[in-house]
């Protein structure tokens, strides 16, 4: 979703952004203030993992617009609370027009919450996901040089499935790694490159 063949777009403010973040003010603000900045806490990563799963097949703009409703519906993505959801919660969520009403994804979110709680015995979801950080980050000069998967996202997807997670494919996991700062795929020279502080410029 983050890749395209077209060149970067210069905004009215004189800043270059990828096309997906250039037009819609919601996406532009998200790109400028959130995307790629490190998330290292369990709740934050569980929320991100869940929203990325809901995104598959849809646009990120759709998820971003619905994010407040998602947070309200899923108890702010508190893993302990979501892990305890039962059938009545599934029915409630399937009736909530504010979110994406996809039964498989809703059930996967509950499954993933339980898996997140179990992972605490191994140091927790945040440590687990960040343990797949490569020692170098891509240095794309053009949008078509931005990968959509990586060996690390493949390994992460495999490892999460082994721990009982669902809806965690390698492409979704690469999008997650980009979004939470584990890799920096901002174009070289863009005003956002290096802003995560994870990678020396």
């Amino acid at each position: 979703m983050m890749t395209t063949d077209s060149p970067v777009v210069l905004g009215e403010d004189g800043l270059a952004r990828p096309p997906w973040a250039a037009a819609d003010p919601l996406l532009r603000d998200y790109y400028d203030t959130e995307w790629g900045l490190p998330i290292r806490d369990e709740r934050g990563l569980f929320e991100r993992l869940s929203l990325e799963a809901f995104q598959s097949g849809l646009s990120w703009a759709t998820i971003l617009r619905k994010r407040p409703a998602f947070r309200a519906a899923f108890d702010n993505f508190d893993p302990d609370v979501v892990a305890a959801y039962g059938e009545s919660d599934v029915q409630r969520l399937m009736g909530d027009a504010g979110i994406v009403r996809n039964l498989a994804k809703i059930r996967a979110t509950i499954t993933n919450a339980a898996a997140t709680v179990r992972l605490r015995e191994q140091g927790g979801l945040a440590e687990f996901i960040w343990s797949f950080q490569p020692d170098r980050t891509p240095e794309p000069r053009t949008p078509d040089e931005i990968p959509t998967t990586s060996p690390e996202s493949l390994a992460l997807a495999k490892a999460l499935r082994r721990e009982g997670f669902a809806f965690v494919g390698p492409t979704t996991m690469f999008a997650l790694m980009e979004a939470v700062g584990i890799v920096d795929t901002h174009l070289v020279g863009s005003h956002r490159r290096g802003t995560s502080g994870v990678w020396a410029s």
Partner: protein
Amino acid sequence: MNDTPENNVPTDRVGTDAVGTKSVATDSVGMDSGGRDDALLERLAPATDVAGLHRLLELRAEQDGLLDVSYRTVDSPVGALLLATTPVGLVRVAFDREGFDAVLEALATRLGPRVLRAPAKLDEAARQLEEYFAGTRTAFDLPLDRALSTGFRGQVHVYLPQISYGHTASYGEVAAAVGSPRAVRAVGSACATNPLPVVVPCHRVLRSDGSLGGYLGGAQAKNALLALEHAA
């Protein structure tokens, strides 16, 4: 006897550098209770003997199962090393350049605030390291606490001791061995975050072209360890 000067050790002394205790430990291992230590105290700690007082503190803390992390430092050919252990086993080896205070602070955050310098608990680890650096030991036989190794990094860290003394492997070979043949870069960061360097031999992992690759203890230390093992 509880009101004798010997027993009225001001609790703030416990947190000072003079007795080598991290201040984070003061709340849990204060020395304000009972007469059962009077004999110990007399034997080990005259009122002015800071070392004796510290030894008593160690014993008390150990008896009461109060310590999350015990630590000491040792000298080595690659500089001073910090060794830290939990009740499970050796949990951290750190190089001087990492900053021991920063490392101890991170351990307190991660493993629990009761951190105390207690060399005796690390005698065996220190002895084995000394033998290793003397060239008379080729493998470590110590209980290890893997609490700082998670996920992919955990897989890599658990694999590393299979690269035997005097041998090396490439990052790619390690990636293949843990089931993700192309995740070479994640192996690189796993080696760079090995919490138990020297003991868990990340220094035996080199780039596929034979060049050194990075090392937490610096290139010089990595070279020195490889030279030591090849010479032996």
